[in-house]
């Protein structure tokens, strides 16, 4: 290892990054993805237009109705129309849901009999429909505890588990940490994918092939600038998350930082491997996006919790590093167990192993010869 050689290469890389304006991408892309997705993807539904047909007109049914009126998630209208006419409102897109309280609602509850509340949901957007449905369940559950003073039998209504650590039901809390895991997988990978293939495309790779520079010196020289520049993104993204999206941070910052650095190494390692096997910049970028963005999104736990996955998707999720990192991320942001949790310890170890293997593979596959 000759420090002078590596230093010269690093200096050259940095000069090029600044003069080719690639540096803008290094800092613009991660923040842009976070802001676009953070604001763009809304699982949360507010002001859902719910039409309530109260056939009971009792004390209990009014308690239930008032619960909907108090909630910011619903804009209820109590109507006295026929069911078929109400359904027509959904077709006309004037309402999102119809809640039907049957005429014997109060009487049956008092007698300890089960009662059924009818709910029609506009399921044109299935995710939105599921969300709205779960909100309604939540409101009914709340109302039922109040109505029966805790004496009503449980088990009739269950809450969706994804809201467990998100009591405020804030979408940002569920989304933003997951997005950090996505961004830090995609952005460094794209940069490092360009680094080697760029020289292959241009021809400057000959300077490496034909000189006595060692393979690991070359890799260190290539990855160090990318690593240092992207490390800053760990902090930038943290600030966006906590100040702009107001996500709470309950865990240890040191763990967040350390795991982030390891994760960037993994991402750089993926990009570097792609850079080694491809011949053109365009192929390298497309391949990197496919290999990082899709799994980063699908198996990050943003869309679906890993625990809710089954069979193939469960195995797939465990193959990609994003799951392990996101587990630690969610912990540091929302739970705060830190390294006390054995799962976190294990996952941090797995991430370290990933980084090590990827960098080793890079040195193994990199050849100082034309292909």
């Amino acid at each position, binding site marked *: 290892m000759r420090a002078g*050689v590596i230093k010269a290469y690093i200096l*050259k890389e940095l000069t*090029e990054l600044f003069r080719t304006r690639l540096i803008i991408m290094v800092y613009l892309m991660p923040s842009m993805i976070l802001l676009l997705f953070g604001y763009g993807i809304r699982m949360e539904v507010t002001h859902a237009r719910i039409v309530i047909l109260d056939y009971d007109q009792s004390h209990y049914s009014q308690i239930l109705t008032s619960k909907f009126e108090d909630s910011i998630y619903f804009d209820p209208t109590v109507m006295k129309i026929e069911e078929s006419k109400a359904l027509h409102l959904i077709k006309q897109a004037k309402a999102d849901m119809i809640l039907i309280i049957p005429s014997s609602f109060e009487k049956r509850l008092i007698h300890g009999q089960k009662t059924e509340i009818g709910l029609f949901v506009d399921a044109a957007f299935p995710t939105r429909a599921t969300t709205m449905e779960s909100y309604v369940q939540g409101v009914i559950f709340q109302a039922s505890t109040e109505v029966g003073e805790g004496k009503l039998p449980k088990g009739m209504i269950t809450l969706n588990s994804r809201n467990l650590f998100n009591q405020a039901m804030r979408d940002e809390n569920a989304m933003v940490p997951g997005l950090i895991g996505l961004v830090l997988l995609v952005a460094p990978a794209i940069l490092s994918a360009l680094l080697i293939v760029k020289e292959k495309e241009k021809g*400057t790779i000959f*300077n490496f*092939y034909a000189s*006595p520079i060692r393979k690991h010196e070359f890799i260190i020289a290539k990855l160090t600038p990318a690593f240092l520049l992207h490390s800053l993104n760990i902090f930038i993204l943290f600030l966006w998350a906590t100040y702009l999206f107001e996500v709470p941070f309950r865990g240890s910052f040191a763990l967040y930082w350390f795991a982030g650095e390891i994760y960037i190494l993994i991402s750089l390692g993926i990009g570097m491997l792609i850079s080694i096997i491809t011949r053109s910049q365009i192929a390298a970028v497309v391949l990197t996006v496919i290999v990082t963005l899709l799994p980063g999104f699908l198996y990050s736990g943003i869309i679906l919790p890993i625990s809710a996955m089954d069979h193939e998707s469960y195995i797939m999720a465990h193959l990609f590093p994003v799951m392990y990192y996101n587990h630690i991320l969610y912990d540091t942001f929302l739970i705060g167990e830190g390294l006390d949790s054995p799962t976190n310890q294990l996952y941090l170890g797995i991430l370290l192993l990933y980084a090590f293997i990827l960098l080793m593979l890079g040195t193994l596959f990199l050849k*100082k*010869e*034309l292909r």
Partner: protein
Amino acid sequence: MFDLELKNVTVHYKDIVAINNASLEAKHGEIIGFIGADGAGKSSLMHAIAGVGRFKGEIIYEGTDYHSPKEAERIKENIGLMPQGIGLVLYETLTVGEHLEFFAAIRNLKKNNDFFTYKNKLLQMAGLLHFVDREAGKLSGGMMQKLSLICTLLHRPKLLILDEPTTGVDPLSRMELWEILDDIRSSEGTIILVSTAYMQEAAKMDKILLFDEGEIIAGGSSPELIDSVRKYTYEEVSCDNDKVCFSFDKRSYALYPLAAKYAEPTLDALFFVNALQKKHTLPTMEIGERQSTVTIPKVVMEAKALTKQFGDFVANDHIDMQLQSAQIVGLLGANGAGKTTFIKMLLGLYPIDEGELYLLGKPILSGNDRRELKAQIGYVSQHFALYKEMTVRENLLYFARMHAIGTETALRRIEKYASALGYLQYMDALPGELPLGINQRFSITAALLHEPVILFLDEPTSGVDTIARAQFWQILEMLKVKWGISILITTHYMSEAEYCDRVVLLKEGVKVADEYVDELYRQHPHAKNFEEIFLEYYQ
């Protein structure tokens, strides 16, 4: 005892043999030249020696033998490689000074007085002393090549491998590059392996290796090689029909005695004689009469002060030119001189920024003016515009249909050209499988199917082997004589000016010469060849 020895080196890529069983010996202080067409195996052999490509066989440098790139690591301290391509190893956004810093650092050089003196000497020799702060991307092609060379020389390599350092570079820069090499060879005792596409440069080499289709067909000093073919070279005569012979550029070549006086051969002769010895058929090509009748005006193309600008950069600066009927005009210049831009303006592929253009006597003001003339213009682009997924026949039929020629007429003409130009056996092959020379011949067919009056050819001969180039010029000459066609052809081979009627020389977007060929010789009585004439314009 030799300092560099190659024993039966073979390089192949999958099934294709790039160079077969090459052997050579060299001593310190020698310049060894590799001469041959693109794809003849020069680069592959250079990569093997430089330890950047896999090979079979053995290479020994100063007692260290290696058989793979990995083993070659041991001698990389001593090697300097400058691969093919203008400015290929340079980083566009780094300045000249930063390049030298970088190359010094990756070679782990000590920055002592000796280093700085040597660095300044190199900068001085390359004429870059005043451009230390300029970014490499903003240098001219010649300056880029000189910078690449001094970056390669910075660690004082004892084995210098240069792959076509002068191709596409202006004559003055080429001369300067050779001066640097000559200086380094004597002051440092370096072995220099250099490949070139220019035969004229052969005189500067101690030993020449001729490459043809993956083999070294001859080796020796320039006079030795020329002597070896002296007995086969005659003044031009018509050949005996049943025996094989080949005529080109005022000379005829045959393996049996011809009834003519002997002539002084050039290095090109080696390729012709080699082809004759290998019994390669060198088909005599015949172009039939034009099928349509046309009246051709005296002046077919006239450009007045044509100008093209890309931002601040003036690619063509007020260029006047005239193309008369039945005339071959060569548009010459180094890479980036503005040759292609000019042709593209004539064709309407680039809008004209300033100036007037007349084609076949008509002023060209809009696209409509061109549309009627399209049927009378043929064009072959720099990278032959062929469809790789279609066979030769399908390609040609497609071009015929574009010109609204009936299928029957088209097939008849295609068949006729294919046999006349000697590629009938390749009609059902894909262009990618064929040598460049064959592709070039059927590209010109595509441009001739509609029997045009003017033909524009953009660098049709670069990378094509000597024989194919000779045959190509024979075709052009026939077209001129039989069809009365006018041809504007661009090339960076200054020697090809010899085959033109008139030449126009461009330098950095400006016309510096526009003269009949014999007139040029009259004006420069001391010049031995065109290289020397053009050098005067550049100085």
